[in-house]
C-alpha cells in the first residue's frame, strides 16, 4: 500500500469494518455528510448509507449513551467525539453505563462500542480543545484505552477495537492526522495490550504512546550521536498496558523515563512509575522520571503552548538526569 496518512488509515479501518460487519454503525457530530472535522470519515456515508453512518446533533451525552444502548442491543457502534475535551459531557455514558454494564449485570452482556476522539495540542486550539484526558478513562475499570502513534498502528488497533467486545476509547492525536507512514497491503489487526519496541536501545527505557513516540525517536537519534542509546517503547494502549514488555526493557537498561503529552500529575506515567517501583525495584539504577505537561490548563498563545508541550529538550534533560 506504501505510505498512508494517519487519518486515511483510520478511514480505511472504518470502511472495512462497515463492509465486513453489518452490525457496525458509525455516528457523531458532522462525521457523515461533512466527512468529519478532520476529514477522517469522508466518503463513508456515501458508501454505506444514512442508516449506518449518521450525523448527530450536538448532544455528546446522549450520543455516547445511545451507543451503549445500541451495543447492548446487538450493534457495534463507533462514535466520534469531536474533541476529547467534550467527553466531559458524556461521562455518565462512559463511566456509569458503558464501563459497568458487563460487571454489574453479572456478565449478561458486553458493550462492544468504540469511542474515537482526538486529543492533544499543537493547533493553538486553547484550553478546551487541546486536553489529553486519557488517564481519566484508564482509571475506570471496564474501559479500554488505545492511543496509536502511526498510521499502520491506527489501522490495526482500530480494527481490534471495533472487534473488541468491550468499550474502547480510541484516542487520536490531532497533530498526527496528516502524518504519513508505511502500511502493508493487507495488514491484520493488532492486539490491544501489546506494546511495540519502536527502537531498541541499551541505556535508558523511554515508555510513551501517541504523538510523543515521535518525540522520543527524534531524541533517540540525536542522543545516539553522543553514545546514549534509548530504548523507545510505544505502549499502543494504556488500559490495558503491557507491563511485561516495560519490565523486560527496564531489566535491560535499568533506567526508566515515562513521556506523555498529558499533564504529569496523577497521569499514566504515575501509574507506570508506581508499578515499576514495585515490581522492578531491584532493576532500577536511578529514580524513575516522568516527562509530561506542567500542571496547568493548555494555554492558547503559540509562544505559551509551545513551551507547555513536552518536547525533545525536556526528554533529553530527563535522560541526562537518570544517567547522572
Amino acid at each position, binding site marked *: 500500500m506504501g505510505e498512508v496518512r494517519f487519518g486515511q488509515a483510520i478511514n480505511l479501518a472504518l470502511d472495512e469494518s462497515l463492509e465486513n460487519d453489518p452490525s457496525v454503525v458509525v455516528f457523531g457530530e458532522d462525521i457523515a455528510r461533512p466527512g468529519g472535522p478532520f476529514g477522517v470519515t469522508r466518503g463513508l456515508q456515501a458508501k454505506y448509507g444514512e442508516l449506518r453512518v449518521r450525523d448527530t446533533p450536538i448532544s455528546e*451525552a446522549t450520543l455516547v449513551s*445511545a451507543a451503549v444502548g445500541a451495543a447492548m*442491543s446487538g450493534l457495534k457502534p463507533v462514535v466520534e467525539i469531536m474533541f476529547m475535551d467534550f467527553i466531559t459531557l458524556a461521562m455518565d455514558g462512559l463511566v456509569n453505563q458503558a464501563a459497568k454494564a458487563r460487571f454489574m449485570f*453479572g456478565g449478561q452482556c458486553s458493550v462492544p462500542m468504540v469511542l474515537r476522539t482526538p486529543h492533544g495540542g499543537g493547533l493553538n486550539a486553547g484550553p478546551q480543545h487541546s486536553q489529553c484526558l486519557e488517564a481519566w478513562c484508564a482509571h475506570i475499570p471496564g474501559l479500554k484505552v488505545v492511543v496509536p502513534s502511526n498510521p499502520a498502528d491506527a489501522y490495526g488497533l482500530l480494527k481490534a477495537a471495533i472487534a473488541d467486545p468491550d468499550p474502547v476509547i480510541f484516542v487520536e492525536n490531532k497533530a498526527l492526522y496528516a502524518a504519513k507512514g508505511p502500511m502493508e497491503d493487507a495488514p491484520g489487526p493488532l492486539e490491544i495490550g501489546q506494546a511495540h519496541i519502536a527502537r531498541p536501545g541499551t541505556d535508558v527505557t523511554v515508555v510513551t504512546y501517541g504523538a510523543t513516540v515521535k518525540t522520543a525517536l527524534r531524541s533517540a537519534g540525536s542522543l545516539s550521536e553522543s553514545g546514549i542509546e534509548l530504548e523507545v517503547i510505544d505502549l499502543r494502549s494504556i488500559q490495558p498496558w503491557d507491563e511485561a514488555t516495560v519490565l523486560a526493557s527496564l531489566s535491560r537498561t535499568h533506567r526508566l523515563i515515562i513521556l506523555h503529552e498529558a499533564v504529569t500529575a496523577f497521569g499514566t506515567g504515575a501509574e507506570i512509575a508506581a508499578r515499576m517501583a514495585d515490581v522492578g525495584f531491584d532493576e532500577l539504577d536511578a529514580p524513575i522520571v516522568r516527562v509530561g505537561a506542567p500542571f496547568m490548563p493548555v494555554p492558547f498563545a503559540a509562544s505559551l503552548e509551545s513551551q507547555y508541550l513536552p518536547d525533545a529538550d525536556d526528554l533529553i534533560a530527563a535522560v541526562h538526569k537518570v544517567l547522572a
Partner: protein
Amino acid sequence: MTSNSQKRLLGFYERMLLVRECELKLSALFADGEVPGFIHLSVGQEAVAIGVMDALNDSDTIASNHRGHGHAIAKGVDLDSFFLEIMGKQEGICGGRGGSMHVADMSVGMLGANGIVGAGIPLAVGSALAHQVHNTQNIAVAFFGDGALAEGVLHESFNLASLWKLPILFVCENNGWSEFSPTSMQFVAEVRDLATAFKMPSRQVDGNDVSAVADVTAEIVSTIRSNGGPQVLECTTRRVHGHYEGDPQQYRDADELASVSDYDPIVLCEEVLQKMKTAGRDIAAIRTRVADRVSAATDAGRAGTLPSFGHLLADVYTPARGA
C-alpha cells in the same frame, strides 16, 4: 361466567398484586436487614408497569430507573433470580453485583434499572436505533419519573429520537415528586408541551387505571411498530413510599400523603372487578397464588449463597476466547 374483559382485568390484577406484594416483602426484608443497600419502591405505581408492558413482546427492550422493580417483574424477570439479586446472592440475576438499582435481564429485553436519574432514557434511544438498523418491528421503551424531566439527556434524547424517527416510547411516570421535592418546584414545563416542541405525539393517561394505561399503550405501540416514530406517554400516578425505603417523608403534607390510598391502582382495579360481579373466590385464588409465589421467591432468596470475591476480576472485561 367470566367474560374476556374480566379475564383481562383479572390478569392485570394478579400482575399488579405480584409487584405490590414483592415490594412489600422487600420492604420488610430491608427493615430486617436481609436486603442491603438502598431500595426504591414503586408502591402505588404498579398500573404503569403492568399496563405498558401488556403491549410489549419479549423482543422489545426497556430501560428502567431506580424505581424499577415493577418494570423488571412486568417484563418477565425470573422472580427467584430477582429476589436473589436484591438480597445480594451469588445466584441473583446479576450475581449479586448490581442489586435493586441494577436489576437487568437481557433474555427478556430488560436493559437494566439505573442508579442515575434519566440515564436509561438515552440507553433506550440507542436500543431503538438498533431496532431500526436491524429493521425489526421491535420497539424500545424508556421509563422515567417526572424527576428526570430536568435532566439534559431527556431533552437531547427527545430531539434525537424525533430527528431519527426511532421506534421508541417515552413513558413518564409522573408521581409529582422529584426525590424529596415536589416537581412543581423543580420543573416549569409540561411533558406534553415538551413532546410537542420536539414534534412527537403525546398522550396523557390516568396512571392508576391499569386498563386505561394498557389500552392507550396498545394503540401507541402499534403506531410505533409501523414506523410511526417516537411517542410520549405521561402516566399520572402517586408515590406511596418515600424516595428510598426508610425515608420518613417529613417533607410531605400529611393530608396529601393520606390521600394516596384513594388512588391505589390495585384497590381501584378490585372495585371494577366487583362491579363486574367477579366471583370472590377468583380474587381470593389470585391472592393465594401471589402470596405463595412471593413466599417461594423469598425462600429462594434466603437459600442463596453469598457471592465470593474470587472470580470478580474476571468479569470486568469480557474473558478472552478460550480463556
